[in-house]
Protein backbone atom coordinates (compact mmCIF):
# COMPACT_ATOMS: atom_id res chain seq x y z
CA UNK A 1 0.00 0.00 0.00
CA UNK A 2 2.84 2.36 0.81
CA UNK A 3 4.46 1.46 -2.47
CA UNK A 4 1.24 2.19 -4.29
CA UNK A 5 1.01 5.58 -2.74
CA UNK A 6 4.58 6.35 -3.69
CA UNK A 7 4.16 5.33 -7.27
CA UNK A 8 1.30 7.64 -8.03
CA UNK A 9 2.18 10.68 -10.15
CA UNK A 10 2.80 13.58 -7.88
CA UNK A 11 1.19 16.18 -10.09
CA UNK A 12 -2.42 15.28 -10.13
CA UNK A 13 -3.92 14.06 -6.97
CA UNK A 14 -7.25 12.47 -7.76
CA UNK A 15 -10.03 14.60 -6.42
CA UNK A 16 -10.35 12.68 -3.23
CA UNK A 17 -13.01 14.58 -1.46
CA UNK A 18 -12.72 17.64 -3.78
CA UNK A 19 -15.79 19.17 -5.30
CA UNK A 20 -16.15 19.20 -9.08
CA UNK A 21 -13.77 21.58 -10.82
CA UNK A 22 -14.87 25.12 -11.48
CA UNK A 23 -11.73 26.37 -13.17
CA UNK A 24 -9.49 24.11 -15.21
CA UNK A 25 -6.09 25.33 -16.36
CA UNK A 26 -4.09 23.30 -18.84
CA UNK A 27 -0.51 23.90 -19.97
CA UNK A 28 -0.59 27.57 -19.22
CA UNK A 29 2.54 29.57 -20.01
CA UNK A 30 2.93 33.24 -19.14
CA UNK A 31 5.67 35.46 -20.55
CA UNK A 32 6.55 38.99 -19.48
CA UNK A 33 8.52 40.06 -22.53
CA UNK A 34 11.32 37.51 -22.59
CA UNK A 35 10.89 36.38 -19.01
CA UNK A 36 9.14 33.02 -18.75
CA UNK A 37 7.12 33.58 -15.62
CA UNK A 38 4.79 30.55 -15.55
CA UNK A 39 5.90 27.26 -17.07
CA UNK A 40 3.40 24.78 -18.41
CA UNK A 41 1.01 24.93 -15.51
CA UNK A 42 -2.04 22.69 -15.17
CA UNK A 43 -4.35 22.78 -12.17
CA UNK A 44 -7.99 22.27 -11.27
CA UNK A 45 -9.78 24.61 -8.93
CA UNK A 46 -12.69 22.86 -7.22
CA UNK A 47 -15.95 24.78 -6.89
CA UNK A 48 -17.23 26.26 -3.66
CA UNK A 49 -13.97 25.58 -1.87
CA UNK A 50 -10.93 27.55 -0.99
CA UNK A 51 -7.78 26.82 -2.96
CA UNK A 52 -4.57 28.33 -1.66
CA UNK A 53 -1.47 29.15 -3.71
CA UNK A 54 1.70 29.22 -1.64
CA UNK A 55 5.30 29.70 -2.57
CA UNK A 56 8.28 32.01 -2.10
CA UNK A 57 8.37 35.53 -3.56
CA UNK A 58 8.52 35.72 -7.30
CA UNK A 59 7.35 32.17 -7.85
CA UNK A 60 4.46 33.14 -10.07
CA UNK A 61 1.47 32.55 -7.83
CA UNK A 62 0.18 36.12 -8.13
CA UNK A 63 0.89 36.07 -11.85
CA UNK A 64 -1.19 32.96 -12.31
CA UNK A 65 -3.94 34.35 -10.12
CA UNK A 66 -4.15 37.40 -12.31
CA UNK A 67 -4.50 35.16 -15.35
CA UNK A 68 -7.73 33.83 -14.01
CA UNK A 69 -9.51 37.14 -14.48
CA UNK A 70 -7.29 38.35 -17.29
CA UNK A 71 -5.88 41.23 -15.28
CA UNK A 72 -2.59 40.48 -17.01
CA UNK A 73 -4.14 42.00 -20.10
CA UNK A 74 -3.45 45.42 -18.60
CA UNK A 75 0.28 44.74 -18.74
CA UNK A 76 1.49 45.40 -22.24
CA UNK A 77 4.37 42.92 -22.26
CA UNK A 78 2.37 39.99 -20.84
CA UNK A 79 1.59 37.02 -23.08
CA UNK A 80 -0.52 34.05 -22.00
CA UNK A 81 -0.71 30.73 -23.83
CA UNK A 82 -2.57 27.58 -22.95
CA UNK A 83 -6.12 27.10 -21.88
CA UNK A 84 -7.93 28.35 -18.84
CA UNK A 85 -11.57 27.35 -18.75
CA UNK A 86 -14.29 28.31 -16.34
CA UNK A 87 -17.05 25.71 -16.48
CA UNK A 88 -15.75 24.55 -19.80
CA UNK A 89 -15.53 27.98 -21.42
CA UNK A 90 -12.08 29.17 -22.44
CA UNK A 91 -11.65 32.61 -20.93
CA UNK A 92 -8.98 33.63 -23.42
CA UNK A 93 -11.30 33.03 -26.32
CA UNK A 94 -11.44 36.13 -28.49
CA UNK A 95 -15.22 36.17 -28.47
CA UNK A 96 -15.37 36.48 -24.71
CA UNK A 97 -16.02 39.92 -23.23
CA UNK A 98 -13.31 40.59 -20.69
CA UNK A 99 -15.48 43.01 -18.76
CA UNK A 100 -18.15 40.37 -18.20
CA UNK A 101 -15.49 37.88 -17.22
CA UNK A 102 -14.30 40.23 -14.53
CA UNK A 103 -17.82 40.46 -13.18
CA UNK A 104 -17.93 36.68 -12.92
CA UNK A 105 -14.46 36.47 -11.45
CA UNK A 106 -13.99 39.08 -8.75
CA UNK A 107 -10.73 40.19 -7.21
CA UNK A 108 -9.57 41.43 -3.84
CA UNK A 109 -6.13 42.99 -3.69
CA UNK A 110 -3.29 42.97 -1.24
CA UNK A 111 -3.59 46.57 -0.18
CA UNK A 112 -7.23 47.50 0.42
CA UNK A 113 -8.19 49.88 -2.38
CA UNK A 114 -11.71 51.21 -1.82
CA UNK A 115 -12.75 53.91 -4.24
CA UNK A 116 -12.53 57.42 -2.80
CA UNK A 117 -16.31 57.57 -2.76
CA UNK A 118 -18.91 56.83 -0.12
CA UNK A 119 -19.29 53.33 1.29
CA UNK A 120 -22.60 52.97 -0.48
CA UNK A 121 -21.15 54.09 -3.78
CA UNK A 122 -18.23 51.71 -3.46
CA UNK A 123 -20.50 48.72 -3.29
CA UNK A 124 -23.13 50.09 -5.66
CA UNK A 125 -20.69 50.88 -8.46
CA UNK A 126 -20.37 47.34 -9.79
CA UNK A 127 -24.07 46.48 -9.88
CA UNK A 128 -24.78 49.82 -11.42
CA UNK A 129 -22.43 49.51 -14.36
CA UNK A 130 -23.50 45.94 -15.03
CA UNK A 131 -27.15 46.88 -14.83
CA UNK A 132 -27.91 44.41 -12.08
CA UNK A 133 -30.38 46.66 -10.29
CA UNK A 134 -33.64 47.70 -11.84
CA UNK A 135 -34.51 50.41 -9.36
CA UNK A 136 -32.99 52.47 -6.61
CA UNK A 137 -34.57 50.26 -3.97
CA UNK A 138 -33.17 47.24 -5.74
CA UNK A 139 -29.68 48.72 -5.70
CA UNK A 140 -29.98 49.52 -2.03
CA UNK A 141 -31.02 45.96 -1.32
CA UNK A 142 -28.01 44.61 -3.21
CA UNK A 143 -25.66 46.92 -1.35
CA UNK A 144 -27.02 46.03 2.06
CA UNK A 145 -26.98 42.33 1.27
CA UNK A 146 -23.36 42.50 0.11
CA UNK A 147 -22.31 44.43 3.18
CA UNK A 148 -24.03 41.88 5.36
CA UNK A 149 -22.39 39.01 3.58
CA UNK A 150 -19.07 40.68 4.06
CA UNK A 151 -19.74 41.10 7.72
CA UNK A 152 -19.45 44.86 7.56
CA UNK A 153 -23.04 46.00 7.64
CA UNK A 154 -23.44 46.21 11.39
CA UNK A 155 -20.41 48.43 11.69
CA UNK A 156 -21.29 50.90 8.96
CA UNK A 157 -25.06 50.85 8.63
CA UNK A 158 -25.37 54.32 10.13
CA UNK A 159 -22.76 55.89 7.91
CA UNK A 160 -23.16 54.55 4.42
CA UNK A 161 -22.55 58.05 3.11
CA UNK A 162 -19.13 58.38 4.71
CA UNK A 163 -16.06 58.02 2.59
CA UNK A 164 -14.80 54.51 2.08
CA UNK A 165 -11.24 55.58 2.70
CA UNK A 166 -12.05 56.68 6.23
CA UNK A 167 -12.46 53.12 7.50
CA UNK A 168 -9.81 51.08 9.26
CA UNK A 169 -7.65 48.70 7.24
CA UNK A 170 -9.63 45.62 8.08
CA UNK A 171 -12.92 47.35 7.38
CA UNK A 172 -11.60 48.64 4.10
CA UNK A 173 -10.66 45.14 3.03
CA UNK A 174 -14.09 43.85 3.96
CA UNK A 175 -15.54 46.72 1.97
CA UNK A 176 -13.49 45.57 -1.00
CA UNK A 177 -14.82 42.07 -0.50
CA UNK A 178 -18.37 43.43 -0.33
CA UNK A 179 -17.66 45.33 -3.51
CA UNK A 180 -16.52 42.14 -5.21
CA UNK A 181 -19.51 40.18 -3.96
CA UNK A 182 -22.00 42.80 -5.06
CA UNK A 183 -21.78 41.75 -8.70
CA UNK A 184 -22.58 38.14 -7.78
CA UNK A 185 -19.38 36.56 -9.02
CA UNK A 186 -18.84 32.86 -9.27
CA UNK A 187 -15.17 32.96 -8.40
CA UNK A 188 -13.40 35.30 -5.99
CA UNK A 189 -9.65 35.76 -6.32
CA UNK A 190 -7.77 37.07 -3.31
CA UNK A 191 -4.20 38.23 -3.63
CA UNK A 192 -2.70 38.19 -0.13
CA UNK A 193 -5.78 39.88 1.31
CA UNK A 194 -4.56 39.95 4.91
CA UNK A 195 -0.92 40.87 4.48
CA UNK A 196 -1.59 44.51 5.31
CA UNK A 197 -3.88 43.81 8.26
CA UNK A 198 -3.48 43.22 11.99
CA UNK A 199 -4.23 39.77 13.51
CA UNK A 200 -7.76 40.59 14.60
CA UNK A 201 -8.72 41.93 11.18
CA UNK A 202 -7.01 38.94 9.63
CA UNK A 203 -9.06 36.58 11.77
CA UNK A 204 -12.26 38.34 10.75
CA UNK A 205 -11.36 38.00 7.09
CA UNK A 206 -10.53 34.32 7.52
CA UNK A 207 -13.85 33.77 9.20
CA UNK A 208 -15.48 35.58 6.31
CA UNK A 209 -13.69 33.39 3.79
CA UNK A 210 -14.98 30.37 5.64
CA UNK A 211 -18.53 31.63 5.33
CA UNK A 212 -18.15 32.70 1.74
CA UNK A 213 -16.91 29.37 0.48
CA UNK A 214 -20.35 27.90 0.84
CA UNK A 215 -21.44 29.99 -2.12
CA UNK A 216 -18.32 31.08 -3.98
CA UNK A 217 -15.23 29.45 -5.37
CA UNK A 218 -12.30 31.15 -3.72
CA UNK A 219 -8.66 31.19 -4.76
CA UNK A 220 -6.31 32.81 -2.29
CA UNK A 221 -2.64 33.63 -2.66
CA UNK A 222 -0.91 33.88 0.67
CA UNK A 223 2.52 34.15 2.15
CA UNK A 224 1.39 32.72 5.43
CA UNK A 225 1.39 28.94 5.42
CA UNK A 226 -0.57 28.88 8.59
CA UNK A 227 -3.27 30.92 6.93
CA UNK A 228 -3.29 28.60 3.94
CA UNK A 229 -3.49 25.67 6.28
CA UNK A 230 -6.34 27.20 8.25
CA UNK A 231 -8.42 28.46 5.43
CA UNK A 232 -8.07 26.25 2.36
CA UNK A 233 -9.17 22.81 1.35
CA UNK A 234 -6.70 22.49 -1.51
CA UNK A 235 -3.19 23.87 -1.61
CA UNK A 236 -0.81 24.33 -4.51
CA UNK A 237 2.89 25.03 -4.00
CA UNK A 238 4.61 27.14 -6.66
CA UNK A 239 8.31 27.57 -7.17
CA UNK A 240 10.07 29.48 -9.96
CA UNK A 241 6.99 29.46 -12.14
CA UNK A 242 6.36 25.76 -11.82
CA UNK A 243 3.56 24.06 -9.93
CA UNK A 244 5.61 21.78 -7.69
CA UNK A 245 2.89 20.05 -5.78
CA UNK A 246 -0.82 20.32 -5.18
CA UNK A 247 -3.24 18.38 -3.07
CA UNK A 248 -5.49 18.38 -0.03
CA UNK A 249 -4.33 20.96 2.43
CA UNK A 250 -3.85 18.72 5.42
CA UNK A 251 -1.72 16.32 3.44
CA UNK A 252 0.44 19.06 2.00
CA UNK A 253 1.16 20.44 5.41
CA UNK A 254 1.62 17.24 7.38
CA UNK A 255 3.14 14.97 4.75
CA UNK A 256 4.12 16.63 1.49
CA UNK A 257 5.52 14.38 -1.21
CA UNK A 258 8.03 16.74 -2.79
CA UNK A 259 11.28 17.62 -1.09
CA UNK A 260 10.96 21.27 -2.20
CA UNK A 261 7.52 21.51 -0.65
CA UNK A 262 8.81 20.02 2.56
CA UNK A 263 11.72 22.44 2.64
CA UNK A 264 9.46 25.40 2.05
CA UNK A 265 6.84 24.61 4.64
CA UNK A 266 9.40 23.77 7.31
CA UNK A 267 11.34 26.91 6.71
CA UNK A 268 14.40 25.30 5.24
CA UNK A 269 14.46 27.42 2.08
CA UNK A 270 17.46 29.63 1.43
Amino acid at each position, binding site marked *: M*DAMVKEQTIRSVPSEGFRPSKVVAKDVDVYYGDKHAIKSLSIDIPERSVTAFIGPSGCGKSTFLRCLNRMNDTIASARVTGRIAIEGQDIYDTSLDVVQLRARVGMVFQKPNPFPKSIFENVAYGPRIHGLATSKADLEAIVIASLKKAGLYEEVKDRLGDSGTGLSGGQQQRLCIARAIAVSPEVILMDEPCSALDPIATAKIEELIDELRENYTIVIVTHS*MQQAARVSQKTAFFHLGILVEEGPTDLIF*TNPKERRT*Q*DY*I*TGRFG
Partner: protein
Amino acid sequence: MSDHTVAAYDNELKELAGSIAEMGGIAERLLVDSVTALVRIDTSLAQTVIVGDIRLDGVQRRVETDVVNIIARRQPMGQDLRELVAALRVSSDLERIGDMAKNIAKRVVAIDGHYHPKRLALGVEHIAELALEQLKAVIDAYTDKDVDTAISVRARDNEIDAMYTSLFRELLTYMMEDPRNITFCTHLLFCAKNIERIGDHVTNIAENVHFLVTGEQPADDRPKHDESSLTPVDFGART
Protein backbone atom coordinates in the same frame (compact mmCIF):
# COMPACT_ATOMS: atom_id res chain seq x y z
CA MET B 1 17.69 17.68 4.90
CA SER B 2 19.13 21.13 4.91
CA ASP B 3 19.10 23.29 7.98
CA HIS B 4 16.32 25.56 9.04
CA THR B 5 16.75 29.14 8.04
CA VAL B 6 16.42 30.05 11.68
CA ALA B 7 19.35 28.35 13.44
CA ALA B 8 17.72 28.42 16.84
CA TYR B 9 14.97 26.13 15.57
CA ASP B 10 17.55 23.50 14.63
CA ASN B 11 19.17 23.86 18.04
CA GLU B 12 15.90 23.32 19.80
CA LEU B 13 15.19 20.18 17.80
CA LYS B 14 18.70 18.92 18.53
CA GLU B 15 18.23 19.52 22.20
CA LEU B 16 14.95 17.66 22.11
CA ALA B 17 16.56 14.70 20.41
CA GLY B 18 19.22 14.77 23.10
CA SER B 19 16.62 14.63 25.82
CA ILE B 20 14.91 11.67 24.22
CA ALA B 21 18.23 9.92 23.88
CA GLU B 22 18.88 10.64 27.52
CA MET B 23 15.54 9.14 28.44
CA GLY B 24 16.29 6.10 26.35
CA GLY B 25 19.56 5.56 28.16
CA ILE B 26 17.95 5.89 31.55
CA ALA B 27 15.12 3.53 30.63
CA GLU B 28 17.60 0.88 29.47
CA ARG B 29 19.57 1.25 32.64
CA LEU B 30 16.44 0.95 34.77
CA LEU B 31 15.30 -2.19 32.99
CA VAL B 32 18.67 -3.88 33.38
CA ASP B 33 19.00 -2.90 37.03
CA SER B 34 15.49 -3.88 37.99
CA VAL B 35 15.81 -7.37 36.55
CA THR B 36 19.24 -7.82 38.09
CA ALA B 37 17.82 -6.76 41.42
CA LEU B 38 14.96 -9.21 40.99
CA VAL B 39 17.24 -12.13 40.25
CA ARG B 40 19.54 -11.33 43.15
CA ILE B 41 16.85 -9.86 45.37
CA ASP B 42 19.15 -6.87 45.82
CA THR B 43 17.11 -4.25 47.65
CA SER B 44 19.70 -1.48 47.44
CA LEU B 45 19.85 -1.83 43.64
CA ALA B 46 16.08 -1.81 43.65
CA GLN B 47 16.21 1.51 45.51
CA THR B 48 18.43 3.05 42.83
CA VAL B 49 15.93 1.94 40.24
CA ILE B 50 13.10 3.62 42.13
CA VAL B 51 15.11 6.83 42.41
CA GLY B 52 16.16 6.59 38.75
CA ASP B 53 12.54 6.48 37.69
CA ILE B 54 11.94 9.80 39.41
CA ARG B 55 14.73 11.30 37.35
CA LEU B 56 13.21 9.81 34.20
CA ASP B 57 9.89 11.41 35.05
CA GLY B 58 11.66 14.75 35.39
CA VAL B 59 13.20 14.47 31.94
CA GLN B 60 9.86 13.51 30.47
CA ARG B 61 8.22 16.59 31.93
CA ARG B 62 11.00 18.70 30.43
CA VAL B 63 10.48 17.09 27.04
CA GLU B 64 6.76 17.82 27.21
CA THR B 65 7.35 21.47 28.07
CA ASP B 66 9.90 21.83 25.30
CA VAL B 67 7.62 20.27 22.70
CA VAL B 68 4.73 22.56 23.67
CA ASN B 69 7.01 25.59 23.46
CA ILE B 70 8.36 24.64 20.07
CA ILE B 71 4.86 24.11 18.71
CA ALA B 72 3.74 27.48 20.00
CA ARG B 73 6.75 29.31 18.70
CA ARG B 74 7.68 27.63 15.47
CA GLN B 75 4.34 26.40 14.15
CA PRO B 76 5.99 23.30 12.73
CA MET B 77 4.83 21.73 9.52
CA GLY B 78 5.40 18.45 7.76
CA GLN B 79 8.42 16.51 8.98
CA ASP B 80 9.03 18.83 11.92
CA LEU B 81 5.46 18.45 13.10
CA ARG B 82 5.68 14.69 12.98
CA GLU B 83 8.99 14.75 14.78
CA LEU B 84 7.55 16.71 17.64
CA VAL B 85 4.40 14.62 17.92
CA ALA B 86 6.58 11.49 17.82
CA ALA B 87 8.90 12.92 20.48
CA LEU B 88 5.94 13.59 22.74
CA ARG B 89 4.58 10.09 22.37
CA VAL B 90 7.99 8.36 22.62
CA SER B 91 8.88 10.22 25.78
CA SER B 92 5.57 9.13 27.25
CA ASP B 93 6.27 5.51 26.33
CA LEU B 94 9.78 5.67 27.74
CA GLU B 95 8.43 7.11 30.94
CA ARG B 96 5.96 4.23 31.17
CA ILE B 97 8.83 1.80 30.61
CA GLY B 98 10.58 3.43 33.53
CA ASP B 99 7.47 3.00 35.62
CA MET B 100 7.35 -0.69 34.75
CA ALA B 101 10.93 -1.08 35.82
CA LYS B 102 10.15 0.76 39.04
CA ASN B 103 7.25 -1.64 39.69
CA ILE B 104 9.57 -4.58 39.31
CA ALA B 105 12.02 -2.94 41.72
CA LYS B 106 9.24 -2.40 44.26
CA ARG B 107 8.36 -6.06 44.10
CA VAL B 108 11.96 -6.91 44.89
CA VAL B 109 11.54 -5.05 48.14
CA ALA B 110 8.33 -6.93 48.80
CA ILE B 111 9.86 -10.29 48.04
CA ASP B 112 12.84 -9.67 50.20
CA GLY B 113 12.70 -12.09 53.17
CA HIS B 114 10.40 -14.54 51.46
CA TYR B 115 11.17 -17.88 49.93
CA HIS B 116 12.69 -17.14 46.54
CA PRO B 117 14.51 -19.97 44.78
CA LYS B 118 16.62 -18.53 42.04
CA ARG B 119 15.75 -21.03 39.37
CA LEU B 120 12.17 -19.81 39.32
CA ALA B 121 13.30 -16.36 38.15
CA LEU B 122 15.25 -17.61 35.14
CA GLY B 123 12.27 -17.30 32.80
CA VAL B 124 11.77 -13.72 33.78
CA GLU B 125 15.42 -13.04 33.21
CA HIS B 126 15.13 -14.51 29.77
CA ILE B 127 12.12 -12.46 28.77
CA ALA B 128 13.79 -9.39 30.18
CA GLU B 129 16.83 -9.93 27.98
CA LEU B 130 14.65 -10.02 24.92
CA ALA B 131 12.81 -6.93 26.02
CA LEU B 132 16.09 -5.14 26.56
CA GLU B 133 17.27 -6.05 23.07
CA GLN B 134 14.05 -4.71 21.64
CA LEU B 135 14.38 -1.53 23.64
CA LYS B 136 17.92 -0.93 22.50
CA ALA B 137 16.98 -1.63 18.89
CA VAL B 138 14.01 0.69 18.87
CA ILE B 139 15.91 3.53 20.49
CA ASP B 140 18.58 3.22 17.84
CA ALA B 141 15.87 3.10 15.17
CA TYR B 142 14.41 6.30 16.58
CA THR B 143 17.74 8.08 16.66
CA ASP B 144 18.67 6.95 13.16
CA LYS B 145 15.14 7.27 11.81
CA ASP B 146 15.44 3.69 10.59
CA VAL B 147 12.02 2.47 9.50
CA ASP B 148 13.10 -1.06 8.64
CA THR B 149 14.52 -1.74 12.08
CA ALA B 150 11.38 -0.29 13.60
CA ILE B 151 9.21 -2.61 11.52
CA SER B 152 11.26 -5.66 12.50
CA VAL B 153 11.16 -4.66 16.17
CA ARG B 154 7.44 -4.36 15.89
CA ALA B 155 7.21 -7.77 14.28
CA ARG B 156 9.42 -9.34 16.93
CA ASP B 157 7.11 -8.31 19.70
CA ASN B 158 5.17 -11.53 19.11
CA GLU B 159 8.21 -13.36 20.46
CA ILE B 160 7.90 -11.56 23.74
CA ASP B 161 4.23 -12.27 23.81
CA ALA B 162 4.79 -15.95 23.09
CA MET B 163 7.47 -16.07 25.73
CA TYR B 164 5.15 -14.46 28.20
CA THR B 165 2.41 -16.98 27.44
CA SER B 166 4.75 -19.91 28.09
CA LEU B 167 6.19 -18.22 31.19
CA PHE B 168 2.67 -17.76 32.47
CA ARG B 169 2.07 -21.51 32.13
CA GLU B 170 5.45 -22.29 33.66
CA LEU B 171 4.85 -20.18 36.73
CA LEU B 172 1.39 -21.68 37.16
CA THR B 173 3.02 -25.10 37.09
CA TYR B 174 5.53 -24.03 39.73
CA MET B 175 2.75 -22.69 41.87
CA MET B 176 0.73 -25.87 41.56
CA GLU B 177 3.81 -27.93 42.35
CA ASP B 178 4.76 -26.30 45.58
CA PRO B 179 2.55 -23.95 47.55
CA ARG B 180 5.62 -22.30 49.09
CA ASN B 181 6.37 -20.92 45.56
CA ILE B 182 3.07 -19.14 45.30
CA THR B 183 4.18 -15.81 46.79
CA PHE B 184 7.34 -15.61 44.79
CA CYS B 185 5.73 -16.85 41.61
CA THR B 186 2.87 -14.39 41.91
CA HIS B 187 5.35 -11.56 42.13
CA LEU B 188 7.23 -13.05 39.21
CA LEU B 189 4.01 -13.20 37.24
CA PHE B 190 3.45 -9.53 37.78
CA CYS B 191 7.03 -8.78 36.86
CA ALA B 192 6.70 -10.84 33.69
CA LYS B 193 3.55 -8.93 32.87
CA ASN B 194 5.38 -5.66 33.39
CA ILE B 195 8.11 -6.76 31.04
CA GLU B 196 5.59 -7.82 28.45
CA ARG B 197 4.06 -4.41 28.70
CA ILE B 198 7.49 -2.89 28.28
CA GLY B 199 7.57 -4.81 25.02
CA ASP B 200 4.27 -3.26 24.01
CA HIS B 201 5.58 0.21 24.75
CA VAL B 202 8.59 -0.58 22.62
CA THR B 203 6.21 -1.52 19.84
CA ASN B 204 4.48 1.85 20.29
CA ILE B 205 7.82 3.55 19.88
CA ALA B 206 8.48 1.53 16.75
CA GLU B 207 5.13 2.60 15.28
CA ASN B 208 5.96 6.22 16.09
CA VAL B 209 9.25 5.87 14.25
CA HIS B 210 7.35 4.61 11.25
CA PHE B 211 4.92 7.54 11.49
CA LEU B 212 7.73 9.99 11.88
CA VAL B 213 9.50 8.84 8.76
CA THR B 214 6.67 7.96 6.44
CA GLY B 215 3.85 10.05 7.84
CA GLU B 216 1.58 7.09 8.13
CA GLN B 217 0.80 4.47 10.66
CA PRO B 218 1.97 0.96 9.74
CA ALA B 219 -0.75 -0.57 7.63
CA ASP B 220 -1.25 -3.91 9.16
CA ASP B 221 -2.49 -4.70 12.68
CA ARG B 222 0.19 -5.17 15.16
CA PRO B 223 0.84 -8.80 15.83
CA LYS B 224 -0.70 -9.94 19.02
CA HIS B 225 0.21 -13.41 20.19
CA ASP B 226 -0.41 -13.12 23.81
CA GLU B 227 -2.72 -16.03 24.33
CA SER B 228 -2.33 -16.06 28.04
CA SER B 229 -5.85 -14.92 28.41
CA LEU B 230 -6.89 -18.03 26.59
CA THR B 231 -4.86 -20.35 28.74
CA PRO B 232 -7.14 -22.69 30.56
CA VAL B 233 -6.44 -23.13 34.19
CA ASP B 234 -7.02 -26.56 35.52
CA PHE B 235 -7.50 -26.38 39.25
CA GLY B 236 -8.60 -29.97 39.58
CA ALA B 237 -5.08 -31.37 39.31
CA ARG B 238 -4.19 -30.69 42.91
CA THR B 239 -4.55 -33.55 45.22
